[in-house]
């Protein structure tokens, strides 16, 4: 590992651990984790899928919000490497999708979107598999052992983040915590849609606005999303906050106007 990369890996883990310790929002944390994966590993795109109590996979977070990549994760409810990885609890590797007849629907979608290799590592909690981390490359090829280990370590961080108050693998509380995380993701997507429509912008840009608003007001992302979709925080307030600060989730509060408490009243 080069020194520069080693530094990046360390920074990523420290930042994830800090966010975890500070009780960061699960959607925010896992989105950051997938972005780190795409950046640190030799892959173009990364995403997390999570199984619900019915064993159905849901897209929990992705490094890119492009519809074509989300579709790759959604299709894996039926078939695909993340699905196989989730079922078996073991890593799955497809270094060259073009020759693989294993997942015809998935392979067609992946190729259509310009991906030619895919790897999936399980998110595990002792004997139970919670979901999978999927990594997509635009060139055929295997991930080297170092990258695979790193991917597994990041997937383990995701599992810990999801189940912070583990009271036993089979306890209903694990399922409940997964469900809570999935609900948080849904409400964030709803808020993205609402803001995107109201502000004539893209869902991706709306997501950044929501993140920066939550960050500045030191609120959980899904909490702010819930205010927006239930009409407790006008879309205008979040959008106008944006025109003052175009993008990036700088830390440090601006305080003042537009705080959720003021807006909710």
């Amino acid at each position: 590992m080069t020194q520069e990369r080693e530094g990046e890996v360390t920074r990523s883990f420290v930042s994830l651990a800090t966010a975890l310790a500070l009780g960061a929002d699960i959607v925010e944390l896992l989105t950051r984790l997938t972005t780190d994966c795409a950046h640190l590993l030799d892959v173009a795109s990364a995403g997390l899928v999570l199984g619900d109590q019915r064993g159905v996979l849901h897209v929990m977070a992705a490094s890119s919000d492009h519809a074509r990549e989300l579709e790759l994760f959604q299709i894996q409810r039926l078939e695909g490497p993340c699905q196989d990885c989730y079922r078996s609890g073991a890593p799955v590797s497809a270094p060259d999708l073009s020759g693989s007849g294993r997942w015809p629907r998935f392979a067609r979608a992946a190729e259509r979107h310009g991906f030619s290799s895919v790897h999936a590592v399980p998110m595990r909690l002792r004997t139970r598999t919670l979901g999978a981390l999927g990594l997509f490359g635009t060139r055929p090829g295997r991930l080297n052992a170092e990258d695979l280990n790193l991917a597994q370590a990041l997937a383990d961080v995701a599992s810990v983040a999801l189940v912070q108050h583990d009271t036993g693998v089979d306890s209903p509380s694990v399922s409940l915590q997964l469900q809570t995380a999935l609900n948080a993701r849904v409400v964030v997507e709803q808020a993205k849609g609402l803001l995107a429509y109201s502000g004539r912008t893209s869902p991706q840009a709306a997501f950044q606005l929501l993140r920066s608003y939550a960050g500045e007001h030191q609120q959980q992302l899904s909490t702010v999303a819930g205010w927006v979709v239930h009409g407790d925080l006008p879309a205008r307030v979040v959008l106008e906050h944006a025109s003052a600060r175009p993008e990036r989730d700088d830390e440090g509060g601006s305080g003042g106007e537009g705080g959720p408490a003021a807006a909710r009243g």
Partner: protein
Amino acid sequence: MSSRERLRGELAAAVSGAGTALRAADALCHACVQLLDVDGAAISLVHEGATRGTFGSSNALSRRLDAYQFTFGEGPCLDAVQQGRPVLADDLTAAAERRWPAFTASAVDAGVRAVFALPVVVATESIGALDLFRHRSGPLPGETMSGGLQAADLAALPLLDLIAQLGVRAEAGIVEGAEEDPWSELESLERVEIYQATGFLIAQLGPTATSPSEALVRLRARAFSTGQTAAEVAQEVLEHRLRIDPDGSWHHDGDHPAHRNADGDEPGRGGDS
């Protein structure tokens, strides 16, 4: 086939063969009693406004107990809906059980010792609950709990039908209780584009006037009436080709230049669109 899969199939069969939403809710409650280790079951709808009450039950006692909660304004079902998580009372006779004095007294009089209320969640919003009753105290076995949670998932479909009939102005052509495969219908509603399109509809209807579940009910009703899938309707909404007016009417409009390309996907990439 694993026992879990068999249970999934049997619960789904109860909902799909029923005909109407009310019968589907009843059938699901009967299936709970037959398949799970419980003595009674009831499904209630707790939606904004006046549409709330008990809609399905396995027998008269379960129906009455469930309905008491609305009379008394307290009970595990109401708490489960409010908190969005299961509310478990495994011994109603315990001295420490003081959460719902009036409801508990009636339940104990009727010979019920334990109640488990599981929220029915749609678009992250609790729209009702499945109540499971037992004549003996003690926690639910893990398998029963897991089966109960699955039944609570399925209960979303008849409740969505009911909301469409009761609350929202009924859109033309809603096919009541016609789910061929309830599990796949539920799964078809769990897609990112549906969540985002729900957000679009909330913006169009007004966030203070519409709840996420109501927006989803409208999207689903639109799909029924046009014969599209919910995902197809969602895509039209996201691409600004279809919008809803606050009065509930749908409009196709391709001519909103301000909205073009708003989904951020560069045209020309991605091949087939």
